[in-house]
């Protein structure tokens, strides 16, 4: 895994990265993570979400509240949210 996401990150890339990350958290999964499936069903609920959010923060280089995962509870929705959030946070600090 690369340490930080590239500046030109696309929604697709972000989704793929999230799918891989969720897969790491649930190593005994027999099928790839479904971007439309609720993350809670993968055990990424209130408990594991802090570490997950920390990973996302580190990779995207922006601040991400764990509650974002609650509000955008599938990979697809989270990716869309994060991409927008990243653009916004970068614009704010630029």
């Amino acid at each position: 895994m690369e340490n930080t996401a590239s500046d030109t990150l696309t929604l697709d890339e972000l989704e793929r990265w999230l799918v891989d990350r969720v897969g790491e958290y649930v190593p005994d999964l027999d099928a790839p993570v479904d971007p439309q499936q609720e993350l809670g069903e993968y055990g990424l609920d209130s408990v594991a979400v802090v570490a997950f959010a920390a990973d996302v923060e580190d990779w995207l280089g922006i601040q991400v509240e764990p509650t974002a995962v609650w509000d955008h509870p599938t990979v697809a929705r989270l990716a869309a949210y994060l991409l927008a959030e990243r653009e916004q946070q970068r614009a704010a600090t630029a």
Partner: protein
Amino acid sequence: MSTSELAAEVDLWSRPGGPFDPALLAAHDEAETFPAQACAALDQWGLPDHYVPGRHGGRLERLDEVHGLLRAVAARDLTVAVAHGKTFLGTASVWAAGDSAAAASLARHVLAGEPVAWGLTEPDRGSDLLSGEVTAVRDGSGWRLSGRKWPVNNATRGRFVCVLARTDPGGGPRGFSVFLVDKDATPRGTVRHLPKVPTHGIRSADISGVEFRDARVPAHALIGTVGGGLELVLKSLQLTRVACVALSLGAGDHALEIGRDFLAERRLHGRRLADLPHARAVAGRAVARQLLAEAVSFTAARAAHEVPEELSTVSAITKALVPTLVQGQLRLVGELLGARSFLTGVDGYGGFAKIERDHQVVGIFDGSTWVNRSALATSLPALRPGRRPRPGTGRPVREWLRADHEPAALDLSRLGVMPRRDSVLGALGELVAALTAEPPGGADRLAARLLDAHGDLGTRIAALRPAAGLPATATMRLAERYEWCFAGAAALAVWAANPQAHDRPAWREGLWLRGALALALEGLGTRPPEANAVFDELGRLLLSDDGARVSLFGTPVEVSA
């Protein structure tokens, strides 16, 4: 002022015939009847004012003051402190949700002495908040609640109950909301009390439950947002967990007082028990546990003001460690007392068994030791070394732990669910270096070992594999090591922040600090060779004239001007 005033009052009330007369409270305990006289005295004195933020007309400004107050009550009777202090817990969510008409209205009721209960737990659901089955469904502009909250402190006495209820049938972290139920305003027959539960300790408290049967509550009963309940509760718990440990400190004060009297009075084989080296070392170890517990609690209370963003971990550490430290302290005092720890009718000593029974609940409610440790364990990856460090915005820890520092105003909107830094443990390197420059009585050697242990912990945290679900046993162990490292760092920070106290009896030659560090190192699995000598010294301190009040800053901690 208010802390020492209350402590003095409680002492007066503890005389024969007073509302805190130990005989009266023992009788309530025996009969399992509510200590109404003691709670009324506290109401009259104005303790409820300290549960209400200043903005709403109360006097809640500082958590270190809340600690001082609850500790003073708990030092005389833990059951009363649990029964009365519960209102602080019950209201926390309402204050944390921000200003609202509900907050203003609740403030008026609390100031008038109405108890407030906090209903999170449900029968058979235990600590798992997401499994809650009390539901709230919309009903016109309001809501209808159904289900049971049990066991709940003050569920029957409290006119208000703050409950977490499922508002989305599917549940999940956004499926719950908080409601403040005014039982008096619900339609007749829709709220039923569940009978008082007989308990091992705090027997006279109102430990009961409440059942909602399609109980209609108005729209303004909703606290915060629909779906925001879990987040709100997780944030409120950070405050209440920090406040709760004052109960442990008070129980510890009470036990040390009894232990000290016994050591001085008891004669064995022609000499005082106090002259038995082993007895002294056991007493000293008990003192060290109490002072370390105090250092951690004080740090947590100040952290709530200065670094609320970090309180999710600080509160978990504090609630896991402090009741454990004090429970161990009580066990040591119990060993010293021998038969008197077991015989309930012995004048002067009979109260000990009650303290020990009462205190057990502190490590169970408001999140058990394990629940808190597990919360910390799941946060560890967010604290791993080498994470892009967030620049600290506030003052350094050695500044805000100074006894006479005026803490920043409580800002509950800064509470979060993910820690991004740990200002206390993060300062360990600096604190150890500062100590080496001016080593008090060999504390620097102990501190250097703590620094090594912390380095090793960092390596292990960095190697943690992410995982969904509850933490593995190995991760729980790491969390426990984290707690001990944090406790040691807190002790060092309190030391560094308070040079004005360095010539006080417990502080001279770094005495309490050495005891605290020795305990932390023991917790980390090493046996510092100097431990026994330190505990012997602390035992002597307890028996000296300065031992009447074992506390870092003098009991009660004096905070407000």
